[in-house]
């Protein structure tokens, strides 16, 4: 049997009605091991204006580099209650903020390990199909060899690496257009 996937449609301006119930801005609970980090920033459009009707979702591994998913067959510990999922709406000015733990390294293509990263999906009014990207961690030596980051044109790699704002606080903006346009993925 062969079917074609359904067509994507925008979340529209009233996305909060259906999606707020699952808002999760604390991705790792108190029993979850790992280095705590707060990531904050803005989702901005082609005019540099904040997107007030947007939403980002995060998917990540735990500190050992294990995903809470049946297809992750690695023999690594997984904390009970760790889902690795975040859903964070933007505020009226396009701002977002969430806290989590820095994930460990997960397997990549050809047996290499990937650098620690968060997988990010972006939704908003005016976007007909979600955008996907990643957040890497500033100063991590594994970034230089990461098999996915290496495929991003060198001048755009910085768009996936937040700036260190304070101890444990990273600033990362999602920029839809212009000079600092975030690199988005197709996989």
């Amino acid at each position: 049997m062969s079917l074609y996937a359904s067509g994507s449609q925008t979340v529209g301006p009233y996305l909060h009605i259906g999606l707020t119930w699952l808002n999760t801005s604390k991705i790792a609970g108190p029993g979850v091991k790992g280095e705590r980090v707060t990531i904050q920033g803005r989702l901005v459009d082609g005019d540099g204006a904040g997107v007030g009707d947007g939403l980002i979702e995060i998917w990540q591994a735990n500190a050992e580099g294990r995903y809470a998913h049946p297809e992750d067959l690695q023999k690594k510990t997984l904390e009970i209650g760790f889902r690795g999922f975040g859903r964070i709406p933007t505020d009226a000015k396009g701002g977002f903020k969430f806290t989590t733990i820095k994930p460990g390294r997960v397997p990549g293509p050809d047996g290499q390990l990937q650098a620690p990263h968060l997988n990010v999906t972006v939704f908003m009014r005016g976007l007909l199909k979600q955008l996907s990207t990643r957040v890497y961690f500033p100063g991590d030596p594994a970034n230089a060899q990461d098999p996915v980051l290496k495929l991003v044109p060198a001048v755009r790699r910085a768009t996936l690496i937040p700036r260190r704002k304070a101890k444990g606080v990273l600033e990362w903006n999602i920029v839809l257009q212009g000079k600092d346009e975030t690199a988005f993925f197709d996989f």
Partner: protein
Amino acid sequence: MRAKGGRDITMNRINAYRRFHPGTQPAYDFPFYASTAKRHPTQPLVIVPQTLSEITGPVFGTDDLKPTDNDLTRQHKGDPIGERIIVSGRVLDENGRPMPHTLVEVWQANAAGRYPHKNDTHNAPVDPNFSGAGRALTDAEGRYRFISIRPGEYPWRNHYNAWRPAHIHFSLFGQAFLTRMVTQMYFPGDPLLPYDPMYMSIPDEKARVRLISQFDWENTVPEHALAYRFDIVLRGREATPMDKSPGE
């Protein structure tokens, strides 16, 4: 982890998902939908391999839901105004395999075409007995079911005399980060469809028509509610593993 014969199964055996078939998905830059102008990426997307990060995704269970979550007519003290409907269908992948135990979230306007949202200023009544949000998990065969009210059409400011056709927003996860899907369900025979930028953003006509639900005589409940059927197809694997039967 190594399987028999020393093959490394955690690192090298990514059972990849197919790419979308051409014409089934909207372009990011779609001038008919004016808001895409400042909200689409202008640089080409970076094509990257599917890794463990993309083929895994969040898992939800019955603990995440309340029993009334799939009945949008029973979330308040009174009955909502409007025509009661039953919306059901299956979530499948491109190989026709059911997607069991996957989360389906819906939201919609009330019968008058109004959302209970601070940004909705349309001069139509809010219904105190209708919030317009629901969720369900599919069963082992990928089936879901909602009870709701037929949503009204409503005006918006995309172009002169712009009206959205009646629709229900659907959000789905599937089994992976890359199977995440948000779409909209439309109703058969809606005269607004050819004028709607959202609906018309799907380039291929056959793919577009699949966003229209079908009247569902068999699930219609006599003297109670009309039913509509809406199946949703998520990305499927390149090769279906032969050692597993569907739904296992």
